[in-house]
């Protein structure tokens, strides 16, 4: 994955999105190259199946192509939306398979960090992995079950044998730790 450079100049997500709204395939291709790995890896981690992850990847980016003009910069980050959309769709697919229900929303995602460049993405990879590796086992397990397996807190409580409030507390503390490390 590389920082997108068109005509030798790095291009911001919003600049690419503006061009995608005018049906510019080069800009779409550049945006895809920038985030396809992250979107695909998120879906693959959740679904554990390449084919289904590829399906999510294509759907998320196809939606960007079809609705580029409707994305509102004031409502948040495009990169954040891509990740949340991939995660929520993959989790919904997982829940459908397990006959579980649950509505997930992806409207409005604000990112407090930059991830448009390759270097920024590498830095985030290092930081998030380090934080996850240093979390106590119980916190890490609760967070992974919630984010990557789309489990409700009650389901996590049943799986881990911990009281519901303990599960919530673990997730909250883990998220606080992540935020502090990234701020």
């Amino acid at each position: 994955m590389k920082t997108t450079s068109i005509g030798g100049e790095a291009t911001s997500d919003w600049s690419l999105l503006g061009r995608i709204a005018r049906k510019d395939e080069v800009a779409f291709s550049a945006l895809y190259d920038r985030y396809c790995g992250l979107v695909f890896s998120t879906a693959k981690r959740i679904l554990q199946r390449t084919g289904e992850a590829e399906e999510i990847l294509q759907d998320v980016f196809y939606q960007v192509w079809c609705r580029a003009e409707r994305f509102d910069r004031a409502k948040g980050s495009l990169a954040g939306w891509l990740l949340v959309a991939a995660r929520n769709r993959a989790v919904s697919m997982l829940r459908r398979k397990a006959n579980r229900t649950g509505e997930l929303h992806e409207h409005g995602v604000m990112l407090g960090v930059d991830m448009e460049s390759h270097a920024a993405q590498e830095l985030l990879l290092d930081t998030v992995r380090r934080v996850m590796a240093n979390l106590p086992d119980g916190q890490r397990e609760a967070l992974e079950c919630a984010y990557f397996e789309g489990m409700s807190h009650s389901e996590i409580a049943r799986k881990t044998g911990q009281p519901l409030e303990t599960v919530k507390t673990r997730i909250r503390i883990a998220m606080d730790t992540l935020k502090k490390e990234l701020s």
Partner: protein
Amino acid sequence: MTNSEHIRDEELELYALGGLPEEEAAALKSHLASCGECAMKLAESRGNAALLSFAAKQEHPAGTIKAELMERIRANREREEHYAWPLPANHQKDAKTQGVTKPGDARLGGWWNWVVVPAALALALVSLGLSWQNRRVSQALEKQRQATQALLHEREEAEKLIRILAAADTVTVKLAAAGETAGSGVVKYNERMGAVVYSAQLPAAPAGKSYQMWLVPVTGSPISGGVLEKGPRSVGAVWLEEVPANTAAKAFAVTVEPAGGSQQPSGAKVLVGAT
């Protein structure tokens, strides 16, 4: 929390992950619909949660996926352009009313019209011919592009198959008949890659039923390894299926299931083999 109180940050973090019980989530949703401040904080919480994606093992999708996607958006654009092509009704009307040729106007141009009109007609015919030719070339190119993509996909599948079969940690499991149905099969399983390659010799499945392959893990429920459907990859051919990576298998089995397969095995075992 009452509807007039702001939602606590911790609750927003939990809501952003989508794991709150329905009644709690409904109460927050109701407040969020009318509170811009909390909605903004929720957007930040979603952003924080989204960063967990970086904890996933980073993988790159196959190049064919992008090619397919680009093809899909190109088709979408062409479709939109196609539907947008006819001029709006008022535009057509304007073109008629603003046209320069009126009955008797030929006199205004004099002899010049005898040159311009046939030339315009000839140009129109040439344009029509070129447009037709262009359309044929585009269609031919499109067919070529699709054929290339299909070949690339086939090559990737073949390469994947070779990688699995050649891997040192791929194990072979022989399947033998488990009931009255005569048959046999072979499974090649690579736990690290999460790949099951198998072939089976079985009579045609009973009407309204399908044969389905199962990986029986050391712990947990059986995992589907796909349905042995009729067609080019039917019984006697080779199937390549993905299962969650790093799943220790203790056995493989083929069962008879309702057509299209089941979430969990429900029918009679016809083939089994322990690892």
